[in-house]
């Protein structure tokens, strides 16, 4: 079971002077339980791409299937697909509209036509997933909350539908470090504990290096890399040419290499970097 894109191309405003090929010949397969990072500079087609995963956009050519259901066919129930493929847009707090936190999170499950008790339990579960205390927040207006809390309510609104695949478009943009960390921890736990497949669009190379199993890099509507973060970030020269960066740790190691240190440069986390530097320091110490 997987989300599969076969030779997908998407053109904005076809046959007009403003025609724009946003995606070209994309082939992607997202397996259950995978954690995929999508990176690319602004305007590279990331947001267009993810909107194909739940049928919000229909490919101009090519085919999208979710768990073997062809989204292009007339019989495909797109609302059921959108329940299965949860999508959190950029600045999701801008889509809050209900009077209470509970009602807003319940909007998705309500649209699925479930019973009141079931909805209530789903909302409760979603709220605990994003660390919002049910009794404390349920009657509060979402508009009185802080930025980070609002974002977590909006994410809970998607999680409440219990999707199998979760797609997040820059979920940490515009949050303070505390809010960012809380959301990253929530997402990590969803992936590890609930085995949810996560597709994570971001500009933060540090976050994605640590979290993703596989990294997809797109540039001008084409996939240029699709591999483990370690292998992708090895191509730092190509990445930098397309306007992307590598994780801070990788940059540090490259700088150290330039200074003549004999260290690896394909490291992703601070922990790895620490060990490598210690190892090097010990060697230097022994030789001295």
């Amino acid at each position, binding site marked *: 079971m997987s989300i599969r894109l076969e030779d997908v191309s998407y053109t904005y405003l076809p046959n007009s002077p403003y025609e724009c090929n946003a995606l070209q010949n994309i082939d992607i397969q997202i397996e259950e339980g995978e954690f995929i990072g999508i990176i690319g500079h602004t305007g590279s087609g990331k947001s267009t791409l993810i*909107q194909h995963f*739940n049928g*919000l956009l229909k490919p101009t050519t090519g085919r999208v299937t979710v768990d073997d259901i062809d989204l292009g066919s007339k019989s495909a129930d797109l*609302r059921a697909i*959108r*329940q299965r493929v*949860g*999508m959190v*847009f950029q600045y*999701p707090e*801008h*889509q*809050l*509209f209900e009077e209470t936190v509970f009602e807003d999170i319940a*909007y*998705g499950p309500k*649209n*699925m036509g479930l019973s009141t008790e079931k909805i209530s339990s789903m909302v409760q579960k979603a709220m605990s997933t994003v660390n919002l205390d049910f009794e404390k927040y349920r009657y509060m207006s979402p*508009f009185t909350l802080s930025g980070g809390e609002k974002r977590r309510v909006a994410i809970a*609104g*998607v999680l409440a*539908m219990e999707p199998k695949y979760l797609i997040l478009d820059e979920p940490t943009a515009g949050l303070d470090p505390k809010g960012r960390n809380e959301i990253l921890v929530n997402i990590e736990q969803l992936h590890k504990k609930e085995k949810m497949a996560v597709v994570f669009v971001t500009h933060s190379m540090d976050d994605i290096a640590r979290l993703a199993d596989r990294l997809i890099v797109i540039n001008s509507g084409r996939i240029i890399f699709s591999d483990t973060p370690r292998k992708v970030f090895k191509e730092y020269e190509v990445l930098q040419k397309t306007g992307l960066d590598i994780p801070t740790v990788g940059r540090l190691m490259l700088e150290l290499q330039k200074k003549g240190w004999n260290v690896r440069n394909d490291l992703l986390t601070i922990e790895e970097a620490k060990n490598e530097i210690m190892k090097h320091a010990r060697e230097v110490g022994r030789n001295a």
Partner: protein
Amino acid sequence: MLKDITIGQYIPGDSALHKMDPRTKIIAVVVYMIGLFLANTQSAYLFVTIFTACIIILSQVPLIMLIRGIKPLWIILLLTLGLHIFMTEGIPIWQWGILKITAEGLKMGLFMVLRLIYLVLITSLLTLTTTPILLTDGIENLLKRMFVPVAHELAMMMTIALRFIPTLIEEAEKIMKAQMARGADFESKSLLARAKSIVPLLVPLFLSAFRRADDLAMAMEARCYRGGENRSRMKELKLAARDAIAIAIILCFAAVSILLRNGV
């Protein structure tokens, strides 16, 4: 579906109409309307048709853009035609039960339809050949000359409103998609389902409009905006020989239209 809204659309170009002073164009449109509404004979309509066609050719605006502007009016056009054809008293040329078509009715109906079409054509030509900024500058200037006290504020409101139409459309589409991802039904045939899905769209849209208004007001104040008093302009509107010629032509148009009305 929201992309079909074409209010305030401008097509860049280099025609005589594009270069004309916006004030001239506004006045010309008003005079044209007078001429158009005075026309009531076949020869007058023939004259108006030829004149309108000349202006359209002069503007170099693709005809398809103009036709697109008329399309949404077809119901009104059909209704006008129908009402006039069947309701005007006169010599019947066709009769079926109580329904009868009179020669006068047919003539009146066609005239009214043409009148409406030309009206829309010329006013859309105005916005198609004038940038929104120039248009509001022109309106502001004209209002000031008519001693309207809040001319600048009115014009600024129009400019901002026009500027934010595409932004709000984009915003609405974004919110629609986000709610669709949560199972909202904007595409359903059922009217009830669609009406229900309006609230989740409108509340965030209003909120974002207010947020934008707040931000814009703050940004304008930060740049020392304080209304129209003593405000100078980087680009002053200046009348050229072209404008004098245009005014002369449009006045001639109105005169001929009046003459034809009296059956000369």
